[in-house]
């Protein structure tokens, strides 16, 4: 195409330009209307009092943000979300890595085990949480029944503000463990076997090989998982909605649930938009971190 004569090139270019814009138009239009505009509008709403029924918008400046910083409900939700992220991200990565090391050896029924570990990942979070809600039932739920069998006193699980958030975190680890393991396993299998053979000849034992070869060479995988998992964890909603609805007494309330409540139960759209903006800033922060730490590999999420 480039070597042919000019007029043809120009004609082809014009034709290609037409096709190029025609082909990207639907995606751009749909994303513009349903993604980009609402994103910008959410930022805008955050400085307004929005009364949808009356169609009235009152400019408030930063009042929504001042209000939510002083709002114990939102602060609790923000702290819970941060605790959730800080717990789930390193724990599922560490457990995933440990399991991946085991799965990087050959053993019988390995593929079956892998499939079992991954099964929670393909199950709807809302439905899986419903099963756990039954398991966590203090009186008849399987967890307390099993504890009783081995003589451990009953736990309140979701019913106590002391244990509810931990119970949600345990559920989420169960849900995401398989994914973390599979990603680490793929990373491990990409490390050339010669590295380990050379280290073994040099007298390095299994722990040394793990810490000196596997862990450093898995750094890109680890970065990906930490970022991907944090972005998802900041958005936690489904399991909280089903398991506790944010209770007891706000002990498991999280930012997205708070946005949902403010917007769609109390119709404080402006206030909810301010809360969503905080969430956006958190996600943006993690994404910026990703750019700073690793520009070497493209990440999709």
């Amino acid at each position, binding site marked *: 195409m480039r070597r042919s004569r000019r007029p043809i090139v120009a004609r082809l270019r014009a034709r290609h330009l037409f096709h*190029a814009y025609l082909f990207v138009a639907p*995606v751009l239009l749909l*994303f513009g209307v349903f993604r980009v505009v609402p994103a910008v509008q*959410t930022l805008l709403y955050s400085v307004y009092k929005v009364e949808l029924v009356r169609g009235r918008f009152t400019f408030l400046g930063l009042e929504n943000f001042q209000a939510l910083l002083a709002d114990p409900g939102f602060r609790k939700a923000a702290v819970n979300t941060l605790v959730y992220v800080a717990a789930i991200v390193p724990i599922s990565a560490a457990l995933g890595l440990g399991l991946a090391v085991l799965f990087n050896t050959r053993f019988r029924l390995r593929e079956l085990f892998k499939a079992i570990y991954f*099964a929670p990942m393909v*199950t709807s979070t809302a439905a899986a949480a419903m099963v756990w809600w039954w398991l966590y039932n203090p009186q008849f739920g399987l967890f307390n029944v099993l504890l009783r069998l081995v003589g451990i006193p009953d736990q309140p699980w979701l019913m106590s503000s002391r244990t509810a958030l931990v119970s949600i975190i345990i559920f989420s680890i169960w849900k995401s463990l398989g994914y973390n393991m599979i990603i680490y396993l793929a990373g*491990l299998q990409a490390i050339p076997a010669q590295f380990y053979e050379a280290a073994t000849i040099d007298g390095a034992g299994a722990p040394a090989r793990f810490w000196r070869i596997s862990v450093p060479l898995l750094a890109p995988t680890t970065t990906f998982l930490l970022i*991907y998992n944090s972005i998802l964890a900041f958005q936690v909603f489904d399991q909280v*909605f089903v398991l506790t609805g944010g209770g007891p007494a706000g002990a498991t309330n999280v930012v997205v649930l708070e946005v949902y409540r403010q917007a769609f139960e109390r119709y404080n759209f402006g206030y909810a938009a301010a809360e969503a903006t905080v969430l956006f800033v958190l996600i943006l922060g993690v*994404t910026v971190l990703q750019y700073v730490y690793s520009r070497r590999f493209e990440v999709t999420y």
Partner: protein
Amino acid sequence: MKPAPARPGLRLAGRLLLYLTVTGVAVLMILPFYWMVITAVSPAPDILAFPPRWVPTRLTAEHFAAAFAKAPWLSYYQNSVVVAVVSVGCSLTFGLFAGYAFAVYRFPLQHLFFFLILSTLMVPVQVTSVALYVLLARIEWVDSYLGILAPNFASAFGVFMIRQGIKAIPHDLIEAARMDGAGEIRIVVTIVAPLLKTTLATVAMILFLGSWNDFLWPVIIINSQDLRTLPVGIALFKDPYGSINYGPLMAATVIATGPMLLAYAVSQKFMIRGIALTGLKG
């Protein structure tokens, strides 16, 4: 890691430990599924028995009958299927053409457009739901299929994956087709799409799974019981004021999760590989 050559006794102990750990974790992973099914098919006294009845004294379908009497599960299925099929179909079609344009053409604003599309990944519906709801209320799409579908007609992830796939296709193939007089749309449909089968299948699977299990947006936009998708149906099945009956509740979760788990059992290699290679869409 390759197992190091060690003394046979030590190796045996290591293998034993490996199997114990792997099996132990597998039991923990599978236990909720097992208990879901057992609760769903056990007669009421078994469900509350102590010590727990791991195998029901007899099988019963009464909980399924109760679940079906209480909620329109077939409608929920239909809603989930319609939403997933339309959103996957549109995302794949639009994504195929947009991905082709981004991979093959050079045009003004190309990089800006691509950046804009990818940047939507950073503002999930968790962030935009408030304004999106207001917008859809204005055009009267609240509480409709169109409302659920609105943010899911196209997928940035799909555009990205398809563009990467098309970039790997030798350009000569496209040039040759052009020489033969094929139009661009025909090239996309008859040359590019068949070559991209694996990518398209993987993207379709991931988008389908995402749509099938999506919860937040449908629960926001749907008010009518008849329009609930399966995850919304199951989450709102738990009546907060009535007495809780775990048999029908677990029967309902079996109804809601069964088909996807079956599909997974049949195609787990494909699904695991696809999700692991591409990163699951949140």
